């Protein structure tokens, strides 16, 4: 019953605020691309997904990153099962 695809290494990717609007999604599950070991490696795979993704992730200096809900950066390691979130600098309070 279980297919082999279910055992592939998945990654949850989340977007917030204007990044969510540009990508058109708040969360997507992708297969961890071969050779991706950190957030920086992942970004080109995401920008290739759509024009909206490319726009959202165009200027990574304007974007903050969290891996498994803790702040990280482009060097933060990612592996199967992780949740990677991209969002603009925060504006609460």
């Amino acid at each position: 019953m279980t297919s082999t695809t279910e055992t592939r290494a998945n990654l949850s990717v989340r977007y917030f605020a204007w990044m969510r609007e540009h990508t058109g999604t708040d969360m997507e599950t992708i297969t961890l691309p071969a050779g991706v070991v950190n957030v920086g490696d992942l970004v080109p795979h995401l920008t290739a997904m759509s024009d909206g993704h490319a726009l959202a992730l165009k200027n990574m200096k304007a974007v903050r990153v969290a891996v498994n809900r803790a702040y990280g950066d482009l060097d933060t390691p990612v592996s199967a099962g992780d949740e990677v979130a991209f969002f603009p600098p925060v504006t609460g309070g």
Partner: protein
Amino acid sequence: MSVRVQTEDFDVGVESRALQAETVGGIALFVGTVRGLSSDDGVTAMTLEHFPGMTESELERIEAEARQRWPLEDVTIIHRVGRLLPGEQIVMVAAASAHRQAAFDAAQFIMDFLKTDAPFWKAEERDGKTNWVEAKDSDDAARARWNG
């Protein structure tokens, strides 16, 4: 100790009384509200989005850092999300301590870190258009002065 993210409003009197205790000598309580039509902005409403799960863990981390720096008896952090109108309460930070200086300082510290670290985003409505608020350098500067 409590960190709450909620759509509903809160009662400052109730929250203040909840922090009163025999060991407490002072409660510093900050309330942030939606600045609207009376200012130059002309904001008619704002909507707050957040990152459920990460927001709470960041606020708890900020509270824990404050407790390491000052002798605090108790802390309450409440932040609202959803659509809010000018004049409405957005955020409350209350710090209770034996002495006032720790309470004042901790409340300010928590607000400064909340502004730069807690994953909330504001979208403002102005002239019928909705725009995401940009982060301010002055908020980064307010946080930075606590370093070192």
